[in-house]
């Protein structure tokens, strides 16, 4: 009997506080917030509908998954169980979206064609908590790059399958997508074009500027003072400032051109900074030895300095690309197009789901770019 009481605290030890906290947050969100919202038309804000009313059949699965994850927080911290938690959380993401799609069908069935079922606060909290659990689980399981890619692809494939099956068609977000179908892929492509069209010139200009700042000590101050100054101008102001001079030059003050110029200017500082930090951080005796053995300046740069600075350079590139994807949303204000056009149109119409149609893909693009560049950096570091 004494041994039984002594064993109790042992068996209830929380081995993963992060997992427990996230599971509790998800459980509270399901209990207290609406899982979806129901509105008579797309312009009126909806009324929250709780999970058990919205999805009586798949709701219990969600609750069971959340409870199972909370239970895993008490399990012994071994890699297989961390991986299992990540898998359950990935399932939770897919099931939650499936439940929301089902709820939209059920709730919309008795209503007029104008009625809209949107994703509620409870849904978003569950999805966010589940995504964090996936990341945490893979980290604790010390998953390699291949496993991480496999996880990401599996989740994306499941969600794509769900969308293709028509299970989500009743959701307001999908209505908005269907209304814009032609425009959506064009907007995504334009968004990517704007990001690439500003990051690539920023690299072409920023890397030489960063190099110059470490090769010529005296140029360092002016270069970074200028770039820092550019960075402090609010993006909307910079877009606005470019309108007049470009219009005066006859190049058009609105549209993609001023957006590309402004986005390039913003990307210059992080590019130049990480170039200077990466190449300037290399032990000077290494370059001295390379020179002393008869490497040319170009050979030293490409064979020695760039590979050694690669982790820092790629970390800088990650920041630049993610920042550019976000800023490009704002560029829609001056008619540059891209996903931001849905965001601002939605804001103008007070249609939250149209805002989401622009914001969600932008977030996913940023996450995907971040993930890919992280993988690249990991493979370079070896």
């Amino acid at each position: 009997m004494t041994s039984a009481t002594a064993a109790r605290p042992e068996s209830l030890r929380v081995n993963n506080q992060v997992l427990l906290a996230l599971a509790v947050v998800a459980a509270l969100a399901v209990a207290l917030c609406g899982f979806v919202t129901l509105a008579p038309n797309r312009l009126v804000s909806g009324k929250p509908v709780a999970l058990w009313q919205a999805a009586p059949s798949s709701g219990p699965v969600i609750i069971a998954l959340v409870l199972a994850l909370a239970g895993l927080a008490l399990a012994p911290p071994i890699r297989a169980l961390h991986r299992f938690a990540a898998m359950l959380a990935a399932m939770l993401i897919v099931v939650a979206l499936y439940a929301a799609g089902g709820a939209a069908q059920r709730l919309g069935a008795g209503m007029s064609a104008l009625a809209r079922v949107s994703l509620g606060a409870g849904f978003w909290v569950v999805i966010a908590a589940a995504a964090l659990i996936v990341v945490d689980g893979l980290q604790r399981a010390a998953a390699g790059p291949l496993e991480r890619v496999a996880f990401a692809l599996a989740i994306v494939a499941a969600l794509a399958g769900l969308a293709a099956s028509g299970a989500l068609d009743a959701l307001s977000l999908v209505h908005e997508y269907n209304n814009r179908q032609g425009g959506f892929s064009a907007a995504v492509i334009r968004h990517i074009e704007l990001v690439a069209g500003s990051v690539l010139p920023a690299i072409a200009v920023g890397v030489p500027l960063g190099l110059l700042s470490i090769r010529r000590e005296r140029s360092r101050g002016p270069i970074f003072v200028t770039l820092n100054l550019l960075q402090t101008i609010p993006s909307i102001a910079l877009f606005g400032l470019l309108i007049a001079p470009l219009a005066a030059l006859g190049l058009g003050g609105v549209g993609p051109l001023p957006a590309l110029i402004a986005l390039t200017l913003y990307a210059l500082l992080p590019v130049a900074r990480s170039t200077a930090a990466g190449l300037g951080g290399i032990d000077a005796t290494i370059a001295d030895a390379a020179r002393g053995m008869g490497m040319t300046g170009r050979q030293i740069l490409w064979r020695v300095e760039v590979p050694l600075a690669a982790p820092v350079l790629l970390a800088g590139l990650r920041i630049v690309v993610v920042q550019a994807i976000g800023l490009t949303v704002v560029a829609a204000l001056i008619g540059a197009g891209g996903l931001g056009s849905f965001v601002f149109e939605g804001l103008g119409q007070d249609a939250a789901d149209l805002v989401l149609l622009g914001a969600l893909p932008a977030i996913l693009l940023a996450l995907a770019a971040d993930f890919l560049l992280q993988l690249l950096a990991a493979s370079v570091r070896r």
Partner: protein
Amino acid sequence: MIEIDRVRKTYDGRTVVDDLSLTVPDGAFCVFLGPSGCGKSTTLRMINRLVTTDSGTIRVDGEDIASLPEAALRRRIGYAIQSTGLFPHWRVEDNIATVPRLLGWPRGRIADRVTELLELFRLAPETYRRKYPHELSGGEQQRVGVARALAADPALLLMDEPFAAVDPITRDALQAELARIHKSTGKTIVFVTHDIDEALRLATDIAILNRGRVAQFATPQDLLENPASDFVRDFVGTQGIGLKLLSVRKVRERMRPGETAEGAPISADAPLRDALSLMTVRAAALLPVADESGRVVGTIALSDLVR
């Protein structure tokens, strides 16, 4: 042969090398010795044009180095430095192969040369060629650094305080190895140090530098016996000068040929300092002396040391 002819170097009005002339004969182990700031490192770096001369000329094997393309000049001169300068992202074999690759040697020849050099430095090729520099000890890194400098078999090797950053025991082993390699390859070595004992141990010729000028250029023994100035006398150090003299003279110079004595013999090529040490340890005033083959060829007595 390296002929340094009246070279001068000024940094921001401060003269670092001042009208310096010096001729290093082929096969010499020439040590530039002096206090910090005396211009020894700058002079060394002028030979492979890492530092440009303000005036004067330097000729290597009769050719004015200013007339040669920079990179080509450096590829035929070995270069090793204090912090090794090994490329941390390259394996040992890639580091050693640096200059042969720049010279476009075929792959097989490079691989053979790497193996040969690792063996020369007593690093087992199969264990070491695939390692990264951070996986090596300080002494091993320095060996690889010197092996890299020797990779393309240059006739001339420049070494800038290569052993200054390693512990005394490792330094001792590295010095012995370098002496062995100098003897077996016959390369011309120019070596910079501020350590008088290292210079006495390794050099065939020592150039003592002071304020950018040559204070004295002589053999180690000559330097100890006939210092040219008070500066040289002070730098060489009056304390322990007798022991330093014993460390530059060989047993062969003082031995009595044909005689024999009891006990394990000392090598005829060992410094007299070792003989004194051995006598102290054995409490013996007489030691047998052996040649390279281990055959006893004579004796050396305590009184011979002070003749």
